[in-house]
Structure formats: C-alpha cells, structure tokens
C-alpha cells in the first residue's frame, strides 16, 4: 500500500517540479485518519500530504469535467483507480477532456472500504482507521476499537470489480494487480430487487426516493454528468422536473441523471457515496449498465476507440423489428 503512496508522491513531485502540470489532484488525509479527501497540490514540496489507502474513494476525474479549469487551459495531474479510469476514458471518447492537458497517474486498486458501514458499527464517532494486511482497525473518540476483515467492508461494486487496473494512464504507481480472467460482468445485489413484483418495486423506490433533498451531490460528484448550468434538472423551461417536493419529482430528477449518463456511466459508485441521505442509486445505474450490456454487449469506458452506445448505431441492432 505504502509503496503506491510513495510512488504517487514521487510522480506528482516530479511532474510539479518539472512544470509539466499546474496542479496535481490526489487524495489526502481528512480531519483525521478515518477518512481521505481530495487534495489539490500546487507545489512540489507539498506532495507529502498525498496518501493512498483503501479510504481513497473519491473519483477525482470529476474535477476534470470542469469546462473552466483554474486557470483556463490549466494542465492538470490526476490520480485514477481502475473504475475512475473508465470514467476518464468515457470523457476522452467524447472529447470532454483535453488529453494534451492532463497527466494521469494510474493506481492499481485492491478495493475501497465503505466508511459508512464502519461508522454504523459504533455509537460514537470514528476518529481513526488503520490498516495492517487485510485487517482494518477502526477506533472511536472514546477509544472503542474494532477489527474488520477488509473483504467484509469493501463496497459492493469493488467485490464485483473486474477492472482493478487503470485503462488509461501516463504513469503507473505500481505494477498491475492480478485481474480476474473471466470478464463477464457481475451485477451484485440488483438481482434481489429485480425479483420483486411491480407493486413491491414501486413501494421500495418510493421509500428510497421520498428522502431525496435534491442537493445535486450525486450530479456534481458524477464524473460523466457534464451539462452544469445547462442541466435540465435546474431548468424551469422546459419544466421537466418541478420544484415540488415529492417522491415522483425526486425519482424524475434521478431519471434525468441516469438517462443522460447512459453509455458513459461505468457504475463507479461516486453518486452513491456522495448521497447524504443514502439513496441506493447504484440500483438504477447498475441496472442500466446491465441492460446495455445485454442489448449491445457494451461496457462504458473500456476502449478509447469506441463510441458511446447512444452516439452511434448499427443497422442491424438486435432489437426493434427491422
């Protein structure tokens, strides 16, 4: 783990010292060791704040989608995990990020842990999380401490991950980790939901979406949702989504997000992690990807030469009558 962290610091330091980038985006420790947060490093002598550990969940390519980097035409260095690199590839496929202006450090990933799941094990605030091998030790403010096996608290999408190594990187922070031989996608927990009756699904969705506060965190954290103030969710004309606080409008809000990133979203889970009211957004996005894979054998963000599914077509697409 620390080898990768050292290598990230080394690569970032070199890029900043040689003036190849204006700033470098990585992860750093949050208020304490129990969380990692994004870091913007502007000087080579500040790279020691960069960290890499299983808490580094943020998909940093979300910062690249900005149409107005600071300064304009900034050259940006960025760290990506396997899933993050798929979103980067999706952005590059559509020319939404300028390849010439980014420097990408790829980090092979062993899975990211779900801090929320750890938090829920304690009544008190978790103030420290440390790692040794596959054991994760969390300690609270009062000194309560508990060990977890890392595999038990990783994100669901990490457990079913088939692309732990970045697809696109200028430099790698370590040798690639072993990849599963069978690349057939797995869809994790959505099958339970699929098996429900229409009325049960409706009830479950209504319960989940009732609590949405439409804070736009899912949309802002999403690396591939790129319309900014042109977003139809913000628009009153057309009034596709109203201001009314109700379940249907909330689901509509999320439908806009889902359908507008279809073909670009690799289910990296950034929206899910950003949601302050813990709406299971992965359900929608993973289902969408499952159906896309079923329809076209298409996986978003796995090849630079490919066009996103909805920007192209085949005369003999295997659905709809001919």
């Amino acid at each position: 783990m620390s080898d990768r962290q050292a290598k990230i610091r080394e690569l970032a330091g070199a890029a900043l010292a040689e003036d190849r980038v204006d700033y470098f985006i990585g992860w750093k420790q949050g208020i304490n060791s129990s969380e990692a947060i994004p870091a913007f490093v502007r000087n080579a002598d500040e790279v020691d704040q960069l960290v890499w550990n299983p808490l580094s969940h943020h998909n940093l390519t979300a910062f690249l989608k900005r149409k107005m980097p600071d300064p304009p035409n900034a050259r940006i260095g960025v760290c990506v995990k396997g899933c993050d690199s798929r979103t980067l590839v999706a952005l590059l496929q559509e020319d939404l990020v300028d390849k010439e202006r980014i420097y990408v450090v790829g980090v092979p990933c062993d899975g990211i842990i779900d801090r929320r799941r750890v938090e829920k094990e304690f009544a008190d605030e978790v103030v420290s999380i440390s790692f040794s091998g596959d054991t994760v030790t969390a300690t609270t403010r009062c000194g309560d401490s508990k060990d977890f096996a890392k595999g038990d608290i990783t994100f669901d999408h990490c457990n079913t991950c088939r692309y732990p190594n970045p697809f696109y990187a200028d430099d790698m922070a370590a040798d690639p980790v072993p990849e599963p031989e069978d690349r057939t996608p797995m869809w994790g927990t959505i099958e339970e939901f699929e098996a429900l009756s229409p009325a049960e699904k409706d009830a479950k969705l209504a319960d989940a979406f009732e609590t949405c506060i439409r804070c736009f965190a899912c949309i802002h954290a999403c690396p591939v949702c790129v319309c900014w103030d042109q977003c139809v969710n913000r628009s009153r004309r057309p009034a596709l989504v109203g201001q009314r606080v109700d379940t249907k409008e909330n689901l509509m809000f999320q439908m806009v997000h889902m359908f507008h990133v279809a073909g670009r979203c690799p289910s990296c889970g950034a929206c899910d992690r950003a949601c302050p009211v813990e709406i299971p957004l992965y359900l929608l996005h993973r289902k969408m990807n499952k159906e896309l894979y079923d329809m076209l054998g298409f996986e978003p963000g796995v090849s630079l030469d490919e066009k996103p599914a909805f920007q192209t077509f085949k005369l003999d697409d295997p659905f709809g009558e001919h």
Partner: protein
Amino acid sequence: MAQATDMRQAAGTTPPDAEDEVKVVGIVCNWCSYAGADGAGTARLKQEFEMRLLRVPCTGRIDPLFAIKAFEKGADGVLISGCHPGDCHYSEGNYYARRKFELLDRMLPFLGVESDRFEYTWVSASEAARWQKVVNEFVGKVKALGPREGRAL
C-alpha cells in the same frame, strides 16, 4: 370532455366511468406514424379512444424522459411510434432512437411499471390498418391492467 363524450355517443361507443378510464399517451413522428394515424382516421377505422397523440418531428427527438414524465404525470400507458428503421425522413433518427427506447423498455419494469404499459413500434404513413391494430392491441393491454397507482413513478 363533454364534447368527447358526445362524439363517443355519436360513434356508438359507450363512455366508460371516468374512474375506469385509462389514459394512454402516444408519441408519434410527424412523417410516418402521425400520417398513418391520420390515414386511419380518414378511412374511419374504428380505434380505442383512450389514445392521446403527441406529434414530434422525428423519433430521434424523443427523449426517454418524455415517456417517464408521462408516467409520472399519471399516464397509464405510453406508445412510441415512428418510421420503420431504414425509412426515417432524416435518414437515421430512428436508428439512434431505437437504442434509447430499448433501454427504456428494459428499465421501466425495474421502476415498477408493468412491461405491457410501454411499447415502441414502427408504423409507416401508408399503414393505416396497421395503426388501427397497434392502437387497439396496445390500449387493450393497458385496459386489462387498469389505471396505475404508482407512488414512485
């Protein structure tokens, strides 16, 4: 509404109770299906009257969100129809559209909407009889399911 009831009585169809009535939205392209529907009307082919048509320039203009919005606003069924693949007035609009509708068709059951409540199909300007058949079959299926009572969508 009163006028519609009069028309139904004139046409010899009994108006159903307002509560039993289903609302079906049809989104059709200007060049094929709308003309086909027009042809069916001109030829006085008897059709289910629950269908409300919405005309757009091309199926390529139809965002899947239009259908979702219709369901959200209380539609009981949504039918999308355009030119047959290969016959698009703008050459390729319906090829792009086909992918979107297929995804929508697969997503709707996941959102708690029965799969019989959504359909996409192709009807050309000369296929008035086919339009009649499509409408009657689709509205029949929606009627069999009855009005929707979704909380989420």
